[in-house]
């Protein structure tokens, strides 16, 4: 097939290419422009993957520097101002450049259209634009370092950020603004895709749950992100022109900023965790080889979480001096979010009942997720309880809590998803044993690092402290050691994944025995995703799965998994 990739989308050929041999989306065209100008959702997904993993590496390095500095109180490897920049960069890179785009834009871009049997997303050009906006945002973030640095924390609280902070604030606020649009476009694109491009016969309730999760995420991205955009623009105006909006010295209100900021940033927490939950639903079902338990409950709980996420932002501000009535309402609403999350966890565990459970690497990550997200979710109860939060607010308890959710939840699910779809994306298998060892290292390192932080937090250790009283030093040392174990796990993981690209065994079309549509096509898939019209059925029906011990492939009656 010689069709230019750039015509895909608008004038997609009606039939599926009967291309023979090894033609797939990776070798269909070549050259740098075939990537930079591609409209293929799979290639855009891979470009995202490369970029967000670079951001993750960078953010992780900053984290290691932070942990090393905190081995002792006072100046160690850096001074206070540098330390403040380090945690600001760690936080904002991880949030804005890695976790928010992480699962939807990288993995979601690759698998979402395939999972619903589409040839691409609804707006392929917009999809490419999203990636370019991400790149622009990342560039602005780098410029902010040259322009004087940022030391506000990822929250940009006023009036510090408008009157006292370093000079890189405007550049970084621009980065957040631009990245916001990248996120909005991705969310919008996926929502339209899910509405309009589902394969024939795929109703809402036989979509894979991954789609429900990403769809709910899109909903939040589209509705909440504009608020952070406006907020950072106001911040820039105030800082550059001295117009009083948030700074009381100019007649503004600093608490207003917190409301604006969290009106986006709390829903953003669910932009981060919902896709993680979405991956979990796939992993647990496939590796238990059992129909997901309580499909409808899980599907609706995603939407419920998305809706509730908009009305709980005030729980970040219990000590800000907002009125008692407001605190009461936000505390009550906060507890309501606990319910749909708990329901999902129960359903995943119940799915394993009477299954045929495999311990392949993605499932190891799924089990880690249940453990870590369990702790992350349950510690949210402490923070939602008003009087207990008065003590725990802004301590390491909060730091530990959101790392258990964001890292133990989202990042672990991301890694699970990455290992799950890796054979599909690149057509290569990685070393299974090394995968399991890396997962174990990350799991152990993570708990050592962050469980310790719960303990020092409830003992009173405030967050964002460069210098600290000596009573907390032992906790810090243990926590730092944990982070090194974790780092070892990540380097191992990077090592065998890169090795698999070069020397990995060729992956079969369906190595795990999945029943969703992406396993009905070759690994890696052809340019237009499928070799013939995919067969749509129950995405979690494994009863008629056939296994071929020779190739390690699984198939189902009627499936066409390769070129004829």
């Amino acid at each position: 097939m010689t069709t230019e990739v750039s015509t895909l989308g608008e004038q997609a050929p009606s039939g599926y290419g009967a291309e023979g041999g090894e033609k797939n989306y990776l070798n269909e065209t070549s050259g740098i422009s075939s990537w930079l100008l591609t409209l293929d959702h799979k290639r855009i997904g891979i470009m995202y993957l490369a970029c967000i993993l670079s951001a993750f590496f960078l953010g992780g390095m900053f984290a290691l520097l932070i942990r090393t500095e905190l081995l002792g109180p006072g100046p160690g490897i850096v001074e206070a101002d540098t330390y403040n920049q380090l945690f600001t960069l760690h936080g904002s890179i991880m949030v804005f450049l890695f976790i928010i785009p992480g699962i939807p834009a990288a993995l979601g871009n690759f698998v979402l259209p395939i999972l619903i049997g589409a040839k691409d997303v609804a707006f392929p050009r917009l999809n490419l634009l999203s990636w370019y906006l991400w790149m622009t945002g990342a560039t602005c973030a780098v410029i902010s370092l040259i322009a004087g640095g940022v030391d506000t924390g990822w929250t940009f609280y006023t009036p510090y950020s408008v009157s006292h902070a370093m000079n890189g604030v405007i550049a970084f606020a621009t980065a957040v603004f631009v990245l916001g649009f990248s996120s909005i476009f991705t969310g919008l694109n996926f929502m339209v895709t899910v509405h309009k491009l589902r394969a024939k016969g795929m109703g809402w309730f036989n979509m894979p749950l991954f789609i429900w999760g990403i769809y709910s995420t899109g909903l939040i991205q589209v509705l909440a992100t504009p608020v952070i955009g406006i907020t950072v623009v106001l911040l820039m105006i105030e800082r550059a022109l001295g117009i009083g909006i948030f700074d009381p010295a100019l007649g503004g209100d600093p608490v207003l900023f917190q409301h604006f900021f969290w009106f986006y940033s709390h829903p953003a927490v669910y932009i981060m965790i919902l896709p993680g939950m979405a991956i979990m639903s796939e992993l647990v079902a496939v590796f238990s080889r059992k129909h997901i338990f309580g499909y409808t409950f899980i599907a609706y709980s995603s939407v419920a979480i998305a809706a509730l996420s908009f009305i709980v932002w005030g729980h970040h501000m219990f000590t800000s001096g907002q009125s008692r009535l407001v605190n009461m309402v936000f505390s009550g609403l906060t507890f309501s979010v606990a319910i749909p999350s708990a329901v999902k966890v129960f359903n995943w565990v119940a799915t394993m009942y009477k299954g045929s459970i495999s311990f392949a690497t993605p499932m190891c990550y799924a089990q880690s997720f249940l453990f870590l997200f369990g702790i992350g979710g349950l510690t949210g109860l402490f923070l939602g309880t008003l009087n207990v939060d008065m003590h725990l607010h802004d301590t390491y308890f909060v730091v530990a809590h959101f790392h258990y959710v964001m890292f133990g939840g989202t990042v672990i699910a991301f890694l699970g998803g990455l290992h799950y779809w890796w054979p599909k994306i690149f057509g290569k298998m990685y070393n299974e044993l090394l995968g399991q060892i890396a997962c174990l290292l990350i799991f152990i390192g993570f708990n050592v690092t962050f469980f310790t932080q719960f303990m020092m937090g409830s003992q009173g250790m405030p967050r964002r402290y460069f210098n600290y009283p000596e009573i907390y030093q032992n906790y810090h040392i243990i926590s730092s050691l944990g982070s090194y174990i974790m780092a070892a796990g990540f380097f191992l993981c990077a090592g065998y994944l890169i090795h698999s690209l070069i020397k990995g065994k060729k992956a079969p079309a369906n190595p795990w025995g999945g029943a969703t549509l992406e396993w009905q096509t070759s690994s890696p898939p052809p340019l237009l995703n499928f070799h013939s019209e995919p067969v749509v059925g129950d995405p979690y029906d494994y009863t008629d799965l056939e296994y071929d011990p020779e190739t390690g492939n699984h198939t189902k009656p009627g499936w066409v998994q390769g070129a004829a």
Partner: protein
Amino acid sequence: MKFISSLFDSFLSPVLGKDKTFWMPEQASTYAYEIDYMFSAILWISTLFFVLIVLFMCYFAWKYRRREEGELSQPSPSHNTTLEITWTVIPIIIVIWMFWKGFTGYMDMMTPPQNGYEINVIGQTWQWNFEYPNGYIDEELHCWKDEPIIVTITSMDVLHSVFIPAFRFKMDAVPGRYHRVWFEPTKAGEFDLYCAEYCGTGHSDMRATVVVHEGQAEFEEWLAEASNFLCKMPPHEAGKKMFEGVGGCKACHSIDGTRITGPSMKDVYGTEETLKDGSKVTVDDNYIRDSLLDPQSQVVAGYDPVMPTFKGRFSDGEISAIIAYIKSLKEGWVEPEWEYPPECAEDGEEGAVEKEDTSL
């Protein structure tokens, strides 16, 4: 067995202990118990749920492990409405209880009693000031046991937050707003006070000591003594005390010539400085006084206008003391002849320094 009992202790300890425990620092305020009780209760409930989830997960994973590739699962239902409703409703009931207990406990924390001792707390980068009813400002928070202390918290510049772990007390200091909250110490002694809201370079050094006296008499004695410091020491030493203490000056002005947020005070007296607008000024008594009362008006070139004003916070006597201290930082300085401010002589020991109650 020993392990199990210590594990038990670690869970119960927040409630049982009055001293530092596995999870919590010592309890030293009236509402600390209530908070620790809730912490403990949630810890138990969470642990129960967590252990159940992990036990089921591990049991299923072992019991139903795949024995050979290609094996299918045993048939079992893919949903069960009764079960699903049950595990939705039970958590709902539990969280309603948590919410209610947390809320009522919070209301107790937020409602100051009618008759308490009032102290104003002022945060600035990076120093806490505690202003007592007689107008005296100290860098330590002094109070006494079994007396409700009503604190009115505000900030001079950016956000700060008063956090006293032993009291389980936390409230943000917001510029332009007053937060009136309270606590009642139950133990005499010294406790740490931290700034819990990020405020820049010196954030982690913005700590203070809370001193809880045994009784009111002891406290009053301390207050009288401390309020009188201008009559107790030479002016340059009084100035040094303020420079390093309540003024918080040393956070931004070094005395050894190193440049930090603001200009160093070493050898600065009597020199000529260039201001932002290009004009020149001699650092004399008047300039220092103006810089304290209206800091933004004459900023030295190359520095940010971030210094808070001390108008209404420093009395004339205190400003003179600071000037005396800055003079003493000049090389070759010899202690001049000095005498106590005129007020000191008038009424001897007690309350020598009468100051207007400028409050905030």
